[in-house]
């Protein structure tokens, strides 16, 4: 599996060489490329139309907020838009990640490449607050009508910001600031496990010829 994806990684790098030199990593039998957001649509088009690659289906699109990421991976900025593509024709997959600006995360929409991306971009806009320029209908999708904020951002509390109840006097539903406190029963904790350190040292030496060992710390 990894062997196949290493070869695919070369094919992808070659196909995209004209546009930009992409950073490709194979881990857990999955290929991930990181691309510049300015070239995203052009790259997606190439990934779809190149017959050797033929990523004809967009499986998933999601936004990730890396602001509290504590691992050793280097994050170029706070937000990333992550695309999972599938080639039904050639039976292989790829993950494309593009890093976005910290204060105004915006990237070109890929609806023109795969129309299935429409709702996925609306979802990423709704939950993470990433703007997809050129999207035909960028409205909120999952949250309530009139909702404020982007719930999957790390600075959004799990309990939310407002709560809703029916006010009998006013004869309507009223919104109030939340009255419950966030409760953490089990703290988030990172344990170093030597066994994995060894295993992943092997993994990265096998699959990461470019040697982009993570530099530590986040942007």
């Amino acid at each position, binding site marked *: 599996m990894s062997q196949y994806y290493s070869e695919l990684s070369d094919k992808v790098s070659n196909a995209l060489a004209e546009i930009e030199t992409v950073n490709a990593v194979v*881990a*857990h*039998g*999955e290929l*991930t490329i990181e691309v510049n957001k300015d070239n995203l649509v052009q790259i997606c088009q190439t990934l779809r139309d190149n017959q050797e690659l033929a990523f*004809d*289906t*967009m*499986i*998933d699109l*999601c936004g*990730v*907020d890396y602001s509290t*990421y*504590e*691992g*050793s*991976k280097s994050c170029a900025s706070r937000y990333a838009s*992550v695309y*999972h593509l599938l080639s*039904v024709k050639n*039976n292989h*997959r790829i*993950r494309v990640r593009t890093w976005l600006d910290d204060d105004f995360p915006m990237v070109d929409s890929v609806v023109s490449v*795969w*129309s*299935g*991306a*429409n*709702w*996925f971009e609306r*979802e990423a806009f709704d*939950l993470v607050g990433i703007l997809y320029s050129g999207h035909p209908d960028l409205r*909120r*999708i*999952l*949250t*309530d009508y009139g909702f404020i904020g982007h*719930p*999957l951002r790390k600075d*959004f509390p*799990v309990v939310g910001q407002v709560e809703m109840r029916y006010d009998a006097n006013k004869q309507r539903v009223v919104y109030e600031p939340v009255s419950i406190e966030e409760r*953490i029963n*089990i703290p*988030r*904790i*990172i*344990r*170093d*496990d030597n066994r*994995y350190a060894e*295993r*992943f040292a092997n993994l990265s030496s096998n699959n990461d010829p470019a040697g982009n060992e993570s530099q530590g710390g986040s942007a």
Partner: protein
Amino acid sequence: MSEIQNYTLNFGPQHPAAHGVLRLILELDGEVVQRADPHVGLLHRGTEKLAESRIYNQNIGYMDRLDYVSMLCNEHAYCMTIEKLLDIEVPERAQYIRVMFDEITRLLNHLMWLGTHGLDVGAMTIFLYCFREREDLLDAYEAVSGARMHASYYRPGGVYRDLPDSMPHYKASQWHTQSEVDEQNKNRQGSLLDFLKDFTDRFEGYVDEYETLLTDNRIWKQRLVDIGCVTAEQAKDLGFTGPMLRASGVPWDLRKMEPYAVYDKVDFDIPVGTNGDCYDRYVVRVEEMRQSNRIIIQCIDWLQNNPGPVMHEDHKVTMPNRMDMKEDMEGLIHHFKHFSEGYSVPEGEAYCAVEQPKGEFGTYIVSDGANKPYRLKIRASGFAHMSAINFLTEGHMLADVVTVIGTLDIVFGEVDR
């Protein structure tokens, strides 16, 4: 002179044919749909956000509640993603159990779909037939996990426990005499596998019954043939997976294309449609039920002859044996750690998908090495299918909208998450 305007109709969110809480704004020209604008999210519970503040095993229960008619398949995808990140192998017996229950789940899902789709289009009997068979399968769920629907039975590293050796029996009461109860308990004398064996022997005949009612039924065909046609190219572009894609003539099934668990060791076929209309999707799903039955039979045979462990041995990540916990110091520590702090998953990211009854269900986990996922993204097939509803219904009659919603096989638990 008054201008003729399109009529806007609000369909749902509390409409029985909306399969849950779908609000659909329909723009009608007479009875012809010009535009359909679905409003989803009325069942949004923030699963992805909640998962970020819970340890890995606590989230298994949430997976059941996503697509609440194909519960164990969702858990399978989630557990597989964690197993990939932890890099652990699942014992073969656990894999067979998973495949068997995945297929039971597929039957449960397709029976629910067939019954309610029939009901939407106007066929009442099929609904009763389908729910009759679901009963036995839900009993199998209950026997193995204690819950009839939200099983939480799979764990990263295997399944929670081995299959039970006996089935619960009905008891006589003032409503049911001993002889009635004896009749009900007839197929419950042996183990769970014997009970399922008995079911699979009968099931082929049940599918024939459904087909007698529907396949050549004139009204059924008039309602379904040539409604909501999708070509293979369009289906791929719209992100369709599962039966929605196969009905358009693309032989794509993750069980064959990226075999996970032990799907490469069992024998089954992939039904493929030709026209990509609602009728083809019906035929594909009915045939899938027959194929699932075949897989279950093969799994039962294997499981009856091959006892073995059902959980990975490394108790740093899996629950220790109950006796070890009571007698062994290390076992006690493992148990305490497992249920208080949980286990840490090494840093990395992974996406794993399974062929859920509705299509490709995948989970994407970003881990920063903590005991909770940093980010969990759930890829639900229903979300992609739902987004195509405008494309599918445009130019059709209002009554066909109901057929199209039915054929999409959507469940709002997974669309809204």
